[in-house]
């Protein structure tokens, strides 16, 4: 067992490349559990952050500061009655949430959390991601149609039109990023002449291309990379049906859109799929434009000292969270009613602190002992941390958008999609190609 662990931690390949099915399976399980936990965390964070945007407290009752609220919600949804409308198309109604869920979880097979921290590195990675995530719309459409009710049907019509339209602009933005993998022109930050001039569709390859060219594609051919990223960042909100593009489930117009007739577990599967899809598209954006797992300024702040500093961040984040939790413990009212909550929050803080200390310990241990496995673990941990950190920024942006903006109307959404985003992304693609050829 230990050998097995060592063989993996010492490996520089993804389980797919190493053809290690056992590790691939373990990875899939880790990702599945991780995404589920992330969705629950996101649920809590969204409610709390949104609440604070809106001068209220958000969940406060279940657990200290509502920390156990997602669990309470999950239990409630699990034991709720699963209502299938009598006029519904039962089979399609039953299968629709599963399709959505399947699509948004399958995407994670190719998400590169690090150079070797991915289930598999597919040659067509980004294409696979786009393809599979485009299947998610089928779940929405089927749900809306199978409910045999007007509001879900309108929701489904809206979402199919919306997702198909924004996929076009999104795809073109992605293509211009892929184009950049093969073009070694002037980056905003310096010139580079690495690689053989062949582009790649592989997710890991795209990040490696950014590594080799010493520039995040966000800043490459400024402002072209920026524009492509902007298009993607807008389209991905539309793809995931989030505010301000949440028309398919606009609750003030369509009560709840395509999942109006759903309840209990099935409804929660839709929510799970939606949040999983949000994390997935954010990871695409991070991979394509924000340098994936790379830490900030790998070239400018290079050297082993800086490496150490940046690898300490993971542990420090947990320590900081622990400190916040302890501040919460201190500020908890001194009253017997709050005793259990106080102890719980202290325990939670302790857990966070322990994780933080463990991570810091690994980093420092690696620095001190130069043990190969510790070094590799540090490296992997740092990579995964920075990747997740960037994704988390996107998740926060999702919440921010939701708190700030009203909802677009359908025709405006379509107009933005076809008359603004599509021409701009096409233009960016063409100009990127021209600039690349001239400078390359």
């Amino acid at each position: 067992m230990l050998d097995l662990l060592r063989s993996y931690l010492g490996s520089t390949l993804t389980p797919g490349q190493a053809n290690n099915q056992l590790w691939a399976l373990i990875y899939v399980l880790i990702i599945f559990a991780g995404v589920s936990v992330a969705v629950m965390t996101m649920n809590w964070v969204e409610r709390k952050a949104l609440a604070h945007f809106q001068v209220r407290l958000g969940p406060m009752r279940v657990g200290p500061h509502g920390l156990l609220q997602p669990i309470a919600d999950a239990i409630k949804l699990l034991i709720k009655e699963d209502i299938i409308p009598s006029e519904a198309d039962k089979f399609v109604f039953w299968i629709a949430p599963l399709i959505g869920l399947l699509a948004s979880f399958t995407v994670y097979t190719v998400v590169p959390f690090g150079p070797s921290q991915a289930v598999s590195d597919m040659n067509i990675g980004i294409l696979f991601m786009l393809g599979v995530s485009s299947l998610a719309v089928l779940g929405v459409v089927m749900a809306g149609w199978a409910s045999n009710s007007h509001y879900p049907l309108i929701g489904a019509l809206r979402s199919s039109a919306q997702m198909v339209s924004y996929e076009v602009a999104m795809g073109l933005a992605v293509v211009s990023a892929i184009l950049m993998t093969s073009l070694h022109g002037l980056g905003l930050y310096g010139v580079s002449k690495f690689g053989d001039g062949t582009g790649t569709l592989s997710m890991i390859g795209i990040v490696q291309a950014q590594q080799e060219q010493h520039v995040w594609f966000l800043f490459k051919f400024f402002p072209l990379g920026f524009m492509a990223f902007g298009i993607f960042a807008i389209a991905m909100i539309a793809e995931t049906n989030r505010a301000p593009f949440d028309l398919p489930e606009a609750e003030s117009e369509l009560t709840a859109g395509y999942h109006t007739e759903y309840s209990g577990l099935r409804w929660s599967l839709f929510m799970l799929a939606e949040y999983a899809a949000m994390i997935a598209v954010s990871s695409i954006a991070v991979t394509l434009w924000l340098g994936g797992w790379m830490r900030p300024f790998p070239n400018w702040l290079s050297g082993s000292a800086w490496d150490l500093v940046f690898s300490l961040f993971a542990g420090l984040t947990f320590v900081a969270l622990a400190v916040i939790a302890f501040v919460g413990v201190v500020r908890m009212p001194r009253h017997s009613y709050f005793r259990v909550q106080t102890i719980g929050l202290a325990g939670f803080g302790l857990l966070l602190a322990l994780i933080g200390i463990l991570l810091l310990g690994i980093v420092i241990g690696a620095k001190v002992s130069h043990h190969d496995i510790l070094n590799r673990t540090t490296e992997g941990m740092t990579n995964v941390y920075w990747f997740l950190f960037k994704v988390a920024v996107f998740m926060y942006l999702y919440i921010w958008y939701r708190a700030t903006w009203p909802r677009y109307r359908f025709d405006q959404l379509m107009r933005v999609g076809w008359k603004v985003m599509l021409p701009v992304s096409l233009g960016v693609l063409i100009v990127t190609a021209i600039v690349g050829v001239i400078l390359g």
Partner: protein
Amino acid sequence: MNAQADPENALTNLDLETSERPHLDSNELIINMGPQHPATHGVLRVILRLDGEKVLGTECVIGYLHRGVEKIGENRTYTMFNPYVDRMDYVAAVSNGLGYCQTVEKLLNVEAPPRANYVRVILTELNRIASHQLWLGTHALDIGAMTPLFYTFRDREEILKIFEKYCGARLTTHAFRIGGCQYETYRGFEKEVKNYLQYLAPHIDEYEELLTTNRIWLERTKKVGVISAADAIALGVTGPVLRASGVKWDIRKAQPYANYSAFDFDIPTGENGDTYDRYLVRMAEMRQSLRIIEQAVNGIPEGPIMAKVPKVIKPPVGEVYHSIEAPKGELGYFIVSDGSTQPYRVRVRPPSFVNLQALDIMVRGLLVADVVAVIGTLDIVLGEVDR
């Protein structure tokens, strides 16, 4: 996906045959919006006839909240009926009470003392702000912006606290009595109102910051639900909706009551009569209300707060129509007295009811999402529509 309407709900009063029939025989969709729908602000049922998402026609089905207020009025004494009027436009209960009390005072031919009028103006204007705040929050929520709702409710809460301190109730206040006000102001009333004025002005800026120049808000509200001044007058639309169409008419100025002539304020008007103008007009009205309150609270005279009215109110035989500018428009009371202790007939002219009639012409040709926006911008309260 059944496109056939059941005959009972057929849109009989619409001339759909002549207006835009779709070229292709696409399926028309009949959608029942409400009575249980998150955006209809109560139990309003709107039957929408759609081509895709485009609205071909609407029919409002109202009356779900009908309680027979006018009938109740005929069976209660003048004094006993006073709290009932609070239950019509329950977000602007103070205005309702003011209109009723003044009508009965007119019938009795008595005048409320000056101090009472000042207190009435302060409370009514505070209530107008509260009503507009509730409108803004729910309207923005309908259009998808959730945050303003919580901002406005936070600030409305302070108004309700003042009401609660003054008369013990927050929503259905029953603040006024026939002949004045029953209660003297509590100690610190003026200070609290002044503090509130200081507090609210920057907060209105805050609402505006979120919405007034927000691109999506502009796109969702500009040129949506346009009603011309001529149409608005023909349909009897009043209040901010009429003013947003460019008619500078406010009963507080046109036929001043309750000492409004003593205060200096403007009537904000719009130009285009669209949802955005109505939004701007109401926002400006909140600021004007602040001005009025400031003048009133500074000039509040000493003296009795209740005129001399008999214990048993028995107005002489006669009939009177009196109307005030409620937050939603012209709120009129027509009371017939037969000389007894009970009104012979009480008629309420509800602004929401009449304004709701304009929904149909405002939403034709728009999309479903706009229906929600237009219902919001009309600022109806179903308790008043149905009475």
